[in-house]
């Protein structure tokens, strides 16, 4: 064995060109696999960073098929009556302004039950967490925990932070501890934790804890030892019934259900999981192609090593010994490729994490298990995978050549008769292992190309999608007014002053403030079109009058908001085209009155004053929904300021900051970027899949081209004599050129014949990722087929040129 190894090293070093090509090929194939495995390892396999995470569940409150956040009274009922869980904890996330530091900061705050930290098994780095008695009394314990990051960056790791008072939305909180490094709450961006019972003062909404119909937080629980998830789910039914009884719903509503889901599942984005699995299959294809190339390379090499093999056999080596010798060499190559692949993976991971698809975290699903540089790393598991895959690849591509080479006909090889053993490999006309392998390689490449083509087409269509608003030359910034400090009247006053200042800036054409931006609106409210009608969920967009002009949203009927649609005046409402069609089928909605339950303000009546064009608020890829607009001067909620300028919008950023700080120096300004930049973020998920699949398809294409080139070039070399004869018989140079290119092309076409139907079948798994593109899209398929043929032509071109240079004199020579 050791001798085999020593010989293998020597033999590889003797042909450095071959070894370099082999290692490069394998590095690409194994590197791509290592990259995707490290993503899977970091996103899907790594356990949640909590104590005994398998026992953790998310409790979801459902009515029919709609999921609701919890209301505090319902949560208290369940917490009191349940028997399946060791502990139950609620939490909610909101942003808050931290003042009293050098620059006021906009931070994410998590409001949590006291049981939250012990349940997750999180110990503070400093101080203590909240005590059970500290989350009982509304507004009773203004305490805070800070993140390690905040402690390091704002308080210079001062241990004296414990006991100090900080100001959050102008309210004092006493810091009792510092969280360990890396722990950033459920949304991975939290810097401050406060007891959930501080909600009324924090939000400025007194009835937050007592109103059973205010839904605002989520609930996790830890299973008791010996209780399984299905058992716990089963025991939720009576609790849900008890909620129905305790809090009879004023309107028609489906009965409550409480669903227990594994927390690990709940935190995994199913779309990301699927796309990673597809990528895994894709890189598997890439590696297969690399292995086919390797097998072909080794077969060409073993032809030139016939003499060596013959001599070994002649001196009595057994076939097994020969196979072992060959496999040692190929596994050694595999491992060398694996080492190089590890470095390729380091680059691959950089690319993947740079493309990080924006975690699609919304209130319902905090997909914390996302592609993040912190979790996607080359760790021990990845290394083990890399080594195992390298060995597997080495055996895979080495086996066939080893079997072939050891089957050598001794008599013929020693006689060295032309047209014997080696000629069998040279021909591409009649099927042999080489041409079958290359055909398979072409087919695999086509499948990958088709997949990538469809994703790229989808991405292109997504980028071209009209979202119903014009977004160039728009700067956006967010400024959130603490409710406690800014009454609705004060908020309106502030924003009107701010808009006034911004309008005065040079080059500014329109300014607006709103709770939404195109492709970014998630506020939902219940609305009905009259007494006794059904309540429907609609997107609630609160905008100042100039919003429509700013984003070029057309008015279709009626009128837009004016300065007079203010507090005190009758409530005015605009419908989008889609909302008008759905909510008032066959009717003219203008002048009709609707009822709204909006922003804890209770039921309100508003009059429909107009209809405007649709805008995609739920991301670019979703069709427009039922959206209604209310006047920001009547509902001053939301913090998104938009400015349309004649010139470069970013040049206005300092002006916007200073305008805000001139009005209130304690308000943090955040999210200052162009509207177009924000839209790029919302295409990031499709971009992630499209770019990675594109890279893998390009790799596959490159490797397939190299493979085809290798096989055609080898066949030209082995058929030099035949080509000479043909020339001697009067073949023109073009005839020879066509002969060689035709050989290459026929392999490619055979690959297409197998590849196209396979790709049609395989790309069906992509359908849920595609945007306005069908899995069997003929344009994409035609494009990638043409691409494959062109590349095959290019790969065959070089050897064909060489074939044209063959000297017909070889026909006369007799070696």
């Amino acid at each position, binding site marked *: 064995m050791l001798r085999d190894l020593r010989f293998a090293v020597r033999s590889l070093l003797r042909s450095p060109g071959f070894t370099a090509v082999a290692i490069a090929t394998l590095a690409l194939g194994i590197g791509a696999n290592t990259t995707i495995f490290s993503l899977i390892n970091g996103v899907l396999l790594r356990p949640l960073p909590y104590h005994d995470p398998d026992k953790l569940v998310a409790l979801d409150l459902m009515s029919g098929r709609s999921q609701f956040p919890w209301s505090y009274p319902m949560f208290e009922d369940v917490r009191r009556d349940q028997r399946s869980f060791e502990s139950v904890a609620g939490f909610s996330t909101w942003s808050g302004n931290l003042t009293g530091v050098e620059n006021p900061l906009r931070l994410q705050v998590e409001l949590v039950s006291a049981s939250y930290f012990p349940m997750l098994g999180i110990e503070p780095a400093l101080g203590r967490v909240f005590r059970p008695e500290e989350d009982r009394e509304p507004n009773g314990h203004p305490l805070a925990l800070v993140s390690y990051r905040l402690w390091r960056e704002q308080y210079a790791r001062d241990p004296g932070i414990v006991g100090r008072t900080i100001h959050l939305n102008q309210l004092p909180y006493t810091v009792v501890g510092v969280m360990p490094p890396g722990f950033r709450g459920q949304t991975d961006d939290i810097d401050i934790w406060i007891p959930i019972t501080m909600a009324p003062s924090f939000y400025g909404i007194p009835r937050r804890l007592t109103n059973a119909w205010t839904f605002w937080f989520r609930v996790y629980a830890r299973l008791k030892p010996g209780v399984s998830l299905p058992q716990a789910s089963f025991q939720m039914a009576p609790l849900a019934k008890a909620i129905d009884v305790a809090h009879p719903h004023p309107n028609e509503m489906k009965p409550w259900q409480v669903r227990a889901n594994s927390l690990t599942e709940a935190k995994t984005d199913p779309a990301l999981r699927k796309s990673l699995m597809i990528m895994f299959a894709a890189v598997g294809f890439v590696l297969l192609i690399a292995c086919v190339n390797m097998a072909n390379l080794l077969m060409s090499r073993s032809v030139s090593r016939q003499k060596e093999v013959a001599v070994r056999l002649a001196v009595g080596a057994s076939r097994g010994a020969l196979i072992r010798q060959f496999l040692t060499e190929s596994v050694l190559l595999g491992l060398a490729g694996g080492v190089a692949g590890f470095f390729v993976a380091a680059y691959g991971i950089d690319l993947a994490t740079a493309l990080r698809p924006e975690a699609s975290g919304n209130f319902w699903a905090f997909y914390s298990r996302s592609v993040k540089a912190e979790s996607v790393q080359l760790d021990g598991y990845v290394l083990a995978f890399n080594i195992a895959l390298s060995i597997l690849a080495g055996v895979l591509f080495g086996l066939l050549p080893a079997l072939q080479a050891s089957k050598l006909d001794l008599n013929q090889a020693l006689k060295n008769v032309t047209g014997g053993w080696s000629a069998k490999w040279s021909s591409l006309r*009649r099927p042999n292992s080489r041409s079958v392998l290359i055909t398979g390689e072409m087919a695999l490449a086509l499948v990958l190309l088709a997949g990538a083509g469809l994703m790229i087409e989808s991405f292109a269509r997504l980028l071209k999608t009209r979202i119903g608003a014009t977004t160039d030359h728009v700067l956006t910034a967010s400024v959130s007014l603490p409710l406690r400090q800014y009454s609705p009247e004060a908020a309106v006053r502030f924003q009107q002053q701010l808009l006034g200042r911004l309008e005065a800036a040079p080059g500014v054409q329109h300014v607006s403030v709103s709770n939404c931006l195109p492709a970014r609106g998630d506020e939902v409210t219940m609305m009905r079109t009259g007494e006794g009608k059904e309540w429907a969920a609609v997107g609630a967009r609160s905008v100042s009058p100039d919003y429509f002009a700013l984003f070029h949203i057309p008015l279709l009927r009626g009128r837009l908001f004016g300065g007079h649609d203010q507090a005190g005046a009758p409530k005015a409402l605009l419908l989008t085209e889609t909302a008008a069609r759905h909510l008032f089928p066959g009717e003219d909605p203008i002048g009709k009155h609707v009822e709204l339950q909006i922003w804890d303000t209770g039921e309100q009546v508003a009059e429909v004053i107009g209809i405007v064009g649709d805008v995609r608020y739920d991301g670019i890829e979703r069709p427009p929904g039922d959206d209604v607009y209310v006047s920001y001067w009547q509902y001053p909620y939301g913090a998104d300021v938009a400015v349309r300028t004649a010139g470069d919008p970013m040049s206005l950023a300092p002006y916007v900051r200073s305008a805000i700080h001139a009005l209130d120096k304690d308000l943090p300004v955040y999210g200052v970027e162009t509207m177009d930049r924000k839209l790029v973020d919302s295409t990031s998920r499709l971009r992630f899949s499209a770019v990675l699949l594109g890279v893998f398809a390009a790799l596959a294409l490159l490797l397939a081209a190299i493979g085809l080139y290798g096989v055609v070039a080898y066949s030209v070399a082995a058929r030099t004599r035949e080509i000479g004869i043909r020339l001697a*018989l009067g*073949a*023109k140079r073009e005839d020879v050129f066509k002969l060689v290119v035709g050989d290459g092309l026929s392999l490619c076409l055979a690959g297409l014949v197998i590849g196209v139907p396979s790709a049609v079948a395989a790309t069906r798994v992509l359908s849920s990722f595609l945007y306005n593109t069908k899995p069997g899209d003929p344009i994409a398929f035609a494009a990638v087929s043409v691409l494959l043929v062109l590349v095959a032509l290019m790969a065959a071109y070089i050897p064909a040129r060489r074939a044209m240079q063959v000297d017909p004199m070889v026909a*006369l*020579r*007799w070696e």
Partner: protein
Amino acid sequence: MADGAVPLIHLEGVTKVFVTDEVETHALAGIHVDINKGEYVSISGPSGCGKSTLLAILGLLDTPTDGTYILNGKPVSGLKMQERARIRNREIGFIFQAFNLIGDLTVYENVELPLTYRGTPGSERKKLVHEALEKVGMSHRVKHYPSQLSGGQQQRVAVARALVGSPSVLLADEPTGNLDSANGEAVMDLMRELHRNGATIVMVTHDPRYARFADRNIHLFDGRVVEEKMEVV
């Protein structure tokens, strides 16, 4: 003979110099040869004297370094590749020592090859291929691959391939070199038969027995013609 005055092949002062690694090999040093239509010429001489080189130049596989080559009244030494391929295809039939059949093609396809490059229509190709195979007595083996034939049979197929396009001249480089004497005998009989029916043949051979079949023998030594003698038939 009506065109007796104009020889089919006229070589004048043909030289060939190979330059490899600064070493100049004068393979041919001023060859003057005329070959008439219908003649059977044998070329002999010791190994390395330039026989194959001469045959390659005659067959337009190679160009002379210097000198004139007139084939069928047309100077051909300065022609372009394209034109040389055309002439090779129409005027020349090659028979090689190593048979040089293409292993991937059947007997039929091998014989058909020169016609394919000429662009002869399919039905006519079929007729000509069968006639040629008939002449060499191989018409019963059309579907076989070369590897399924004996050496003598392979060479007969190669002869059929050489004459299928009715070339002006058949060039053979030691056609019996790879054959045992019985098979060699048979191939030589075939050549004689073709000659009797009017073919022009130029054949390189070491074997004095076969050289005697020719009308004329050209003896080369060190790239020069040292002896030309007519055989008495």
